[in-house]
């Protein structure tokens, strides 16, 4: 579902957020440190900081619905991935190296728009939980009249 071009886009180091909802359809959401596309683009692993509001994990475990927003700060190019929660797991050392490298890419993006890396130095983006999501739909989210168009 996520082809090579989209995978490269999603893994380059972007502003990533995950949106969830509770049983009353009230939304919740938080930042995501990094993502890795797996299973030939059918699934992705979202590295979600353990420090985030517990509501996001509660929502994922209870109803599984998720929306992941990916935005490149330097040009606002954005994609939204809708999906279903599959599983969660502790992260490995390899995961940590992967996620931190991707986070570095995001900081480079922030630098391009004049926000230095030190601006995020207090944020608690690690340790993370590796949350596996099955991709169900893809949408363009670059702002404009065509935002929301289905991708492939």
């Amino acid at each position, binding site marked *: 579902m996520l082809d090579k071009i989209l995978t490269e886009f999603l893994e380059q180091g972007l*502003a990533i*957020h*995950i*949106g*969830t*909802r509770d049983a009353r*359809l*009230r*939304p*919740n*959401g*938080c*930042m995501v440190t990094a993502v890795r596309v797996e299973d030939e683009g059918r699934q992705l692993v979202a590295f979600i*900081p353990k*420090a*985030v*509001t517990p509501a996001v994990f509660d929502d994922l475990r209870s*109803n599984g*619905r*998720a*929306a*992941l*927003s990916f*935005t490149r700060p*330097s*040009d*606002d*190019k*954005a994609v*939204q991935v*809708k999906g279903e929660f599959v599983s969660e797991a502790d992260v490995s050392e390899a995961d940590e190296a992967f996620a931190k490298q991707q986070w570095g890419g995001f900081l480079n993006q922030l630098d391009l*728009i*004049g*926000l*230095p890396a*030190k*601006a*995020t130095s*207090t*944020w*608690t*983006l690690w340790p993370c939980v590796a949350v596996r999501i099955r991709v169900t739909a893809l*949408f363009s*989210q*670059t*702002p*404009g*009249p*065509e*935002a*929301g168009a289905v991708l492939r």
Partner: protein
Amino acid sequence: MSLGLETMAPCFQGIVPAMFFTCDTEGIPNAAFLSHVDYVDPTHVALSFQFFNKSRRNISENPYALVRVIDPDTHQGYALRLKYARSETSGPLFDRMFLRIEAIASYTGLKGIFKLKAADIYEVESVDLVPEQPGVKERWSPRSRVRQENAVFTMKAMQEMSARINTADSLESLLESILSGLKEHLGFSHSMILLAGEKPGTLVTIASRGYPQRGAGAEVKFGDGIIGVSAEAQKPIRISGLLRGMLHARAVAMRAMEAGWSPDREVPLPGLENPESQLGVPLVVRGELIGVLCIESETPYRFHEDDKVTIEMLGSHLAVAIQSMQLRESEDAMATPRAVAPPPAAPSRSGSHREVTYYRGEEVLMVDGEYLIRSLPARILWKLLTTKKREGRSEFTNRELRLDKSLKLPDYKDNLETRLLLLRRRLEEKGPDIRMVQKGRGRFALEVGCEIDLVEKA
């Protein structure tokens, strides 16, 4: 509410984009960036509604939302639980958001596409700190720039400005005094004043400060950029995080072009290459637009919402002062007798030579093939140069110009003194061999420091 919205003003400047979470009635969540969350009152915020996107559709089905904002100075994240209340398509809040977006749209050729449809008002049910985004205790200065902690338009600064305005004895000294006062008392290094142009719906730069070029004579059309939009609406416009806003608008433009849309004309930024904050203050007297004061800064959050009232007050005061000075100079000039004084010895630079060409049809004056000025100031300078050549006279009065039918001055409010000031500024910048030197109220000398060939073309 656990935290007060009124203490979070920096979060609502559009400097760091916000994240907006919604959910449809099928239970599918949505997460999308928002360019701007606006403060309304201690219990409400407004979100701009520009496109019928998924977030907007979700809200029409399910009014509950979560928005996350970041303080651009401390980088503390905040989560605001919202409930949609209403949409406004007119009124002060809508106007404020509309004009800001309109100015950015004109800079990016997006007028008509990047447009506010409504200001969506949300009740804020709770505000919580975002646990994974704790901020620093001390406010961070972006790119070593210091954020102004307090409102800059203080009463003391306003008094200092008033004192300057009241002691000015000419339009030129008044304009200079205003711009230098903005720097000395308010700390604004980059500012310009534009006055109503000869052509309806235009403004002309008459004075500026802090830029490499003075830009005298530069024209701005109503509706173009912060100056033109402010003039057209006769309302002040404050933009923080301009570069972020333009980045967002450019993303919209790219997307729209992919869909076959052709961009409108891009309006150049007025002065600074990379301004982060801009303020456009219309100078209005009894409903009549006198001009616009434009202030720019490279600091993202330079003008505060709290300053709105004092900004409008300053604008009114400046407008009255400028209009009064224009009228006074005009009356003084009419009381001045026709000049017949002998010509002063003009400093002649041996060997220096210029060709001044007047294109009668277009009313444009060129010096050595380079554009100098057009319309009334061009007619005036041509008149002065030809009179000097024909009669050998160098001193002139505003009165004789005002009475000269060939110059085609408007019968009512001719703004001659303003046009003469513009001409003088333009000559200083583009034709320094020709100078207009003030010789008292309503009287000046034309000094020419080189040999001049006068060429008239149809």
